[in-house]
Structure formats: structure tokens, C-alpha cells
């Protein structure tokens, strides 16, 4: 197997694994930039994966090939709804944001499995028939070499994810809305003085994170796992959180980190079939994202620092 052949396998696989991470990390980005810690990303992905699969199974006869995309919208809405709970607790009721996030994670898994048993009478769903499928992107895949590397044998969702990352960057850094969102996360009192509604901005930040987290879960379920059970989402949300931090709370950084973590994940799965890598225990690849994030936080790989007001509730009139 030549070097190019390896790339033909590794690159599409990286894109596949990175897509859910990119979406979820971008979601976390909106929440944390507004000053709300979101440990609940894992739970938001769980509920997204669950609702996408349930909707997909129920409507694949009527919707045909559109099913996975419509299911993704459903996952987005359900994710956003669940995140409202986190918003209410951590913004309005000033709950400890980490604790509220933990509650979201516990709740999502419990509720999803409860409903799976209620709907299907067993612990996991059937396998969906209409998932996202591998495609060669028209026109682009005809480009010599690059076309085969980046645009063949791949999924639309990965490119949507990358495009959304650029949109998120634009929204966050080039629009008045983005400026307000970041202001609220850095110095809510100053923002409040300037007439920005801190509570509203934070609610929007958290709800966007729920929507994007739901999409992330929906993509994972419909392109990687193809069904829903207790183990469908195991750590993806936390890895997205890691990508967010490793990407220094910047949408494009988060995207880059998510791609890199996707690369590590795909290598840990397909590595054993590749020359050179077959003798390396995959434990190193599995733990790489987490270790790198810790190193980034300590400042060994460029220090990652979060928004100033991250994790502190804003109480009007308090200094």
C-alpha cells in the first residue's frame, strides 16, 4: 500500500469522524463565549442522536432520500429545547453551570433510553435504512489528485460542517451580534451598561449551542452508528469540548482541533489495517486528544484562555 493509498483511506475517514465534533464544538463556542460553561454538550449530542434516529425510522418511507436531512433539523430543534433547561438553570436561577451541565447529561441519557424502551420495547433502536451515504461530490471530485483525496468517497455533512464553521467565525467576529455575545462573556457589567441585554444574549448563546450540539449528535447517529443505544454517544461531546478549548474558543480553531481529533479517532479505528501504524497500540491515539488539550491549557502548546466571565452568573447591581 503506497502513501497515497493510505491518504485515500485516512482523509475521508477523518472528515467523517470530524463532522459531529465540529458542529458540537461550534455549539459550545457560542455558549462559552457568552459566559456559560457547557459541560452538557454530551447530553445535547445524545438527545440529538436519539431524536434523529427516531424521526428517521418513523418517516423514512414518506421522506425518502431527504430523511436524514429532515431528521437533522428535528435533532437541532430537540437539542435547542433541552438546552433551554440549562439556560434557565444557569442564567435565570444562577445554578452552578457545571452542575447543571452534569444534570443535562444525566437527564439526556435517562430520557432517551426511557423513550426508546417506551417506543420500541427494547434497549436499542433498529438500524436506520436511510442514513447519510458516501458520495463523490459532483465536479469537485473530478479535479486531478485533490478531487480523489478530498471530494471522493465522502459525506456532504463534513463539508457543511466546515462551511458552518466559517459562518460561525463570521457571525462571532464580524457582526454586531457576535461582538455583543463576546462582550457579555468577557465583562457582562460593562456590556449591560452599554445597553446590551446580558440575559438575552446568554440565552441565545446557550440555545445555539443546543441546536448545534443536537445536529452534531444527529450526524454521528446517521453516519457512524446508524442506530441508537446507551453507547451511541460515549464521550463525543466531551471530545468536542476538548476541541473547543484546544482551538482556544475560536470557531476556526475549534474546527481545526475537531479535524485533528477526528483524524486521531479514525486512525485509532482503521490504524490496525495500515502499514507503519499496525504495531503502535491504539491507546496512544485514543488518549491523544485529551492529553493535548491538557497540554494546551497548561501553556505548553500556546496557552488557551477562556472568556473572562466564563462560569460566573451575572447579577444586576452586584459588583
Amino acid at each position, binding site marked *: 500500500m503506497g502513501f497515497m493509498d493510505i491518504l485515500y483511506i485516512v482523509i475521508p475517514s477523518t472528515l467523517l469522524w470530524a463532522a459531529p465534533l465540529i458542529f458540537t464544538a461550534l455549539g459550545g463556542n457560542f455558549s462559552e463565549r457568552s459566559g456559560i*460553561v457547557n*459541560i452538557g454538550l454530551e447530553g445535547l449530542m445524545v438527545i440529538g442522536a436519539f431524536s434523529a434516529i427516531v424521526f428517521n425510522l418513523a418517516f423514512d418511507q414518506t421522506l425518502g432520500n431527504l430523511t436524514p436531512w429532515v431528521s437533522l433539523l428535528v435533532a437541532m430543534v430537540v437539542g435547542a429545547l433541552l438546552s433551554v*433547561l440549562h439556560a*434557565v*438553570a444557569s442564567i435565570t*436561577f*444562577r*445554578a*452552578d453551570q*457545571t*452542575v*447543571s451541565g*452534569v*444534570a*443535562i*447529561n*444525566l*437527564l439526556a*441519557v*435517562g*430520557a432517551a*433510553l*426511557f423513550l426508546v*424502551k*417506551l417506543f420500541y420495547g427494547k434497549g436499542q433502536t433498529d438500524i436506520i435504512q436511510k442514513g447519510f451515504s458516501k458520495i463523490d461530490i459532483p465536479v469537485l471530485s473530478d479535479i486531478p489528485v485533490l478531487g480523489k483525496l478530498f471530494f471522493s468517497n465522502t459525506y456532504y455533512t463534513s463539508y457543511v460542517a466546515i462551511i458552518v464553521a466559517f459562518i460561525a467565525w463570521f457571525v462571532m467576529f464580524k457582526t454586531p451580534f457576535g461582538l455583543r455575545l463576546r462582550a457579555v462573556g468577557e465583562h457582562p457589567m460593562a456590556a449591560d451598561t452599554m445597553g446590551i441585554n446580558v440575559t438575552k444574549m446568554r440565552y441565545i448563546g446557550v440555545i445555539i449551542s443546543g441546536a448545534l450540539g443536537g445536529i452534531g449528535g444527529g450526524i454521528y447517529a446517521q453516519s457512524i452508528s446508524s442506530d441508537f443505544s*446507551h*453507547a451511541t454517544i*460515549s*464521550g463525543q461531546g*466531551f*471530545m468536542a*469540548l*476538548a476541541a473547543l*478549548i484546544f482551538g482556544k474558543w475560536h470557531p476556526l480553531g475549534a474546527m481545526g482541533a475537531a479535524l485533528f481529533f477526528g483524524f486521531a479517532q479514525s486512525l485509532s479505528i482503521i490504524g490496525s489495517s495500515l502499514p507503519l501504524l499496525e504495531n503502535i*497500540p491504539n*491507546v496512544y491515539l*485514543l*488518549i491523544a486528544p*485529551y*492529553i493535548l*488539550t*491538557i497540554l494546551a*491549557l*497548561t*501553556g505548553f502548546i500556546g496557552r488557551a484562555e*477562556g472568556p473572562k466571565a466564563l462560569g460566573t452568573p451575572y447579577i444586576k447591581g452586584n459588583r
Partner: protein
Amino acid sequence: MSNRVKNIIVPIMAVILGMLVGTIIMIVTGYDALAAFTALWNGAFGEIYYTGEVIRQVTPLILAGLSVAFAFRTGLFNIGVEGQLIVGWLAAVWVGVSFELPAVIHTLVAVIAAGVAGALWAFIPGLLKAKFRVHEVIVTIMLNYTALHVTNYIIRSVLSEKSDRTEMIKETATLRSSFLEGLTDYSRLHWGIVIALIAVFIMWFLLEKTTRGYELRSVGFNQHASHYAGMNVDKNIILSMVISGAFAGLAGAMEGLGTFGYASIKGGFTGVGFDGIAVALLGGNGPIGVILAALLFGALKVGALNMPLEAGVPNELVDIIIALIVFFVAASYMIRLFIDRISKKGVK
């Protein structure tokens, strides 16, 4: 109403609200709520066997809860109990499988090994927090997954020949007791509960009755004031994480030496570590509170297993209830506001 009373009412209200929402969910989804709660009760206390199982489940919950509570009391949030627990579990089983020691001593060495392993795993976030001001929540989350993958690797490649579990630990290292099993109609109840209760005492004594504990709490309240008073803030932060991790490691020993007697490859977390957060929160981070909250969650978890059999209700309902309780405790500002309003009305 005094704060003391409020601190007791808030968790009780949270439990009641959690149960209430759980009931509503059952009614909406067409399940028989009364039958479900009856099944839950029977599954936890209906027979002596079940009660033995509840106490077995309560054992690691107490230790995980202590771990979280200890960190909370000293101003830290240890969300890494899960990772420290798995590391402790592995260490205990490792000693249990490969050492040759006389009975009792073997068990003690294995338990201590678990505590030390958990402490070392928690030393990392402690050190990073003290030296680099890195927030411990992120580091401990990352270390949870690192622990999961590393222990899986060790079990597969070092402690066994590509198998997905280790051998059983030696008879001499076990926490199991035929006496306790006989007492409870052959449940898996083991001596770990004694260790857990001793740990509760140690936590209380350490925090409330020693100079060191005073310093730890003081650093938790206000680092700058503590520093000004001449305390070594860095040292206290590290020590606090290490002690918290040791409790978590012990929780792992309970599973490794008591309940299971081996360590196996895990696809995901045990959940005990996250339940520990629930226990600590509901228990108000106090020793008695932790025991009571662990009892409640232990009974819910074990009792839940009877719900599908006796009432046809999925046992995940209990997970929902536990999540809601955590949620209501976290948002206790809401409950406090409500209590204030009611008590004010009473005055008028």
C-alpha cells in the same frame, strides 16, 4: 426562616420535586405510577436480599460522594471522580491478582493501593491548578477519558492475554464475606461498607477538627486571605485534590475487591463518579448528608431494577428522577426564592 432550616428543606424539596416530575412523566407516558413506586420500594427493601444489594450499592456512592464533597468544601470541583475510581479499581485488582500475602493484610494493601492510585491521578489536576492556574474541571474531564483508555489497554495487554477481563483476585484480597452474604440471603454485600463509614469519619475529623482541615477550607473560601494569613495556597490545593482522589480510588476498590472481584474492559463509564456529584450536592457536602443521599440514590438504583419486572416501567425512569433532583438542587435559588416568598406571607 433560618439558613440552617433552609439548607435542610432545599434538598428535601428537590427530592420531592424530582419524584413529582417523575410521576408526571409516568402518567403522561401511560405507565402506572403507583405500581412503579411500589415496585421500586419492594426492589430496594422488600426482601433482605435487596436491602443487602442496596447497601452494597451505597458503599461506592458514599466514597464517590465524599470525594466530590471534600473537593467542594475546599473550593474545588472534582468532576474526575470517575477516572480516579477506575484507576483505583485497576490498582486494587492488580495487587489482588499478582501479590502473595496473608489474608487481611492482602486486602489492606490492595485497598491502600487503590487509594494511592486515585490520589496520584488527582495529583495531576491539583498540580496544574496550583502551578499553572488551569481550571480543574476541564483537566479532570480529560483525565477521565484518559483513565478509561489507559486502564482498558492495561487490562487487555498487561494483566491478561488479549482478554476483556482480568483473572479473579486471590481469596486473600477479597472484601467479600460469607458472613454478610449469609445475613442478607446471599446478596453481594461486603465489608466495604465499614471502610466507607470509616472514610466518612475521617473526612469529618480532618475537615472540622484539625489545623490542616481548617487551612484547606480557608483556601477554599478565599485564596488571597489565606495567603495573607501565611498559608501555602498551592500546597493546600494539591493536597485537597489528592485527598479527594484517594476517596475516589477507594470507591474503585469497593467495586474491584468487593462487588466484582476483577476488572474488565469498559466501553463507557461506571456512572458512580457522576452519581457522586449528585450525592455530594444533595447531601450538602456534609458527612451525614452524604450518607443519607447515598442511601437514597443507592435505593433508587437498586430498586429501579425491579421496576421493569414488577410494573413494566423502564428502570431508566430512575435515572431521569436522579437527573431532575440534581437539577433542582443546582437551581436551588428557585426553591429558596419560593420559600422566602411563602415565609414572608406567613409573617404578614
